[in-house]
């Protein structure tokens, strides 16, 4: 057994496998599986679905389309809004046996500020992830595509909380390293990537867009190679920790992501196929390390200064 323990932004994790935001609803899973879900919780930290200042119903159906080795979603961030989350969901999420990371998104800097202040003051919350890259909501895309916007947002939010701030990066930019650098310069404690890739599907009969919202985000093994490269590029640019995700389905996939510089990996679409995928990936990661005679996770090389 290798030592899988990691620390990220001062949070000690039992192992480096967490969930991607919006890919595992612990409260719904508790309804489907009961308390056994908590007893064998597959992740070492739980990242919530993104919450917004006001409640959102989400996008009209259809919201899903299966692709070769993946899927496109256009869910549209349905959530109870800040107040609903704090009152109804947070106490229930606090029962989970792992640290809680809350994902937030707002259409304005002020909205983000309110979310960060209100969520950040709660003891149940270990860290906040800023969703600046969700491709389903136009306002989110703009910040995460622009280094200047990203820097400005982080500079505004950093003084508002002592909790770690994680910036979730979009892959649909020419230079993800530049956005990550802006996040680091603005005071971010970590970056997580990749979010889904913008994608479209057509109804084969009508040749009209299949998804109710017209387009969505691609996830699953179909994007793994892209995600690996983006993690490599970002890890070379910043010295803050990187949470790597995108199509991870096995311990070997996780090890590749860690080897390229991620400190933690997140499992997303694979959990849809098996709610315990995260636990399997952790076990496989342990085996992969043992096979290579390694007692520890790969250590990240220092960030280069050359870009």
């Amino acid at each position, binding site marked *: 057994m290798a030592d899988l323990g990691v620390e990220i932004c001062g949070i000690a994790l039992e192992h480096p496998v967490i969930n991607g935001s919006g890919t595992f609803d612990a409260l719904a899973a508790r309804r*489907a599986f009961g308390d056994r879900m908590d007893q*064998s919780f597959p992740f070492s930290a739980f990242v919530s679905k993104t919450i917004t200042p006001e409640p959102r119903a989400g996008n009209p159906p259809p919201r*899903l389309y299966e*692709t*070769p*080795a993946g899927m496109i979603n256009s869910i549209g961030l349905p959530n109870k809004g800040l107040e609903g989350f704090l009152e109804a969901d947070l106490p229930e999420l606090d029962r989970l046996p792992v640290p809680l990371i809350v994902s937030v998104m707002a259409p304005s800097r002020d909205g983000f500020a309110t979310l960060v202040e209100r969520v950040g003051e709660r003891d149940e919350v270990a860290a906040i992830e800023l969703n600046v890259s969700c491709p389903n909501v136009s306002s989110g895309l703009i910040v995460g595509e622009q280094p200047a916007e990203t820097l400005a947002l982080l500079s505004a939010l950093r003084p508002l909380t002592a909790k770690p701030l994680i910036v979730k990066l979009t892959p649909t930019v020419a230079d993800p390293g530049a956005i990550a650098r802006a996040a680091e310069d603005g005071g971010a404690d970590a970056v997580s990537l990749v979010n889904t890739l913008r994608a479209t599907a057509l109804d084969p009969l009508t040749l009209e867009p299949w998804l109710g919202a017209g387009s969505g985000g691609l996830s699953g093994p179909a994007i793994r190679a892209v995600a690996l490269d983006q993690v490599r590029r970002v890890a070379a640019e910043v010295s803050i920790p990187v949470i790597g995700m995108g199509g991870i389905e096995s311990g070997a996939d996780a090890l590749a992501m860690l080897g390229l510089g991620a400190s933690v990996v997140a499992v997303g679409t694979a959990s849809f196929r098996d709610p315990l995928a995260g*636990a399997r990936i952790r076990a496989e990661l342990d085996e992969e390390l043992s096979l290579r005679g390694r007692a520890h996770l790969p250590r990240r090389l220092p960030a280069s200064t050359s870009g």
Partner: protein
Amino acid sequence: MSDRVLAPFGRRCCEVSANRASGGYRVVSALDREGPQPQPGQFYMLSTDAWGGPGGRPYLPRAFSVAAAEPAREGLRLDFLIEAVGPGTALLAGLDSGDSLHLTGPLGRPFSDPGELGKGAAGAVLVGGGIGVAPLALLRRELARRGVPQRTLLGFRDRAHSGGLELFDCSEIRTASEDGHTGHQGYVTELLGVLLEGDDARSAAVYACGPPAMLEAVRLMCAERGVAAELAMETPMACGFGSCFGCAVPLADGGYMRLCVDGPTVAADRIESALIAGSGH
């Protein structure tokens, strides 16, 4: 029936014990050694070893209502009614005895009791269409076991798109077919219409599962006559346990429900239409 049975956490591997023809469909049976007895209306997410094979599809598991669940040696025999219509269903329909069937379940909200659906409803009318007859087979057995009076009406397009009758273990089924190969030539909703004209129509709740157009016709007929109805619906679904938010069904009073955890059985008066974009594919 509404207190749902909970699934073991995680996907498990079951051995296929039989795969037989049933009309134009297949009945695939698997031995579940770990799961609990499912309730009528609940479903499982199914996949096989060949998932994600050449071409990368199918990738996501497929949701199937359970049609029968009988005690067997060392577990439970689960029967699924399958029609090969795409890459996932083709693999499921082609399973052989001894193959692995990966499943998560039982999931979702079971059918309600007649009395929970309609004031004074003591009996049940089951209306099934095509492959959608599956959950009604398990419901019929459960209602019969409990002595609830019932009528079963099943409709099919043609001989190639029919099957599953023997799962009902009952000779008193009225059938309809669009090509006239069995029973009344026409739609199953025409049989329902005749039944609902009776003075005692409100003494029974209607349970329906089938193609969206059939469900919508049932919903409208029951609403018009003040008869309580519950629909077992289907939409594209990635996970089956509330995580993907893909299976959204618009509600009559605004917003959406997740069909996997808040359904798949839905009281007909909760929705404005059973014609959900993307369902029936």
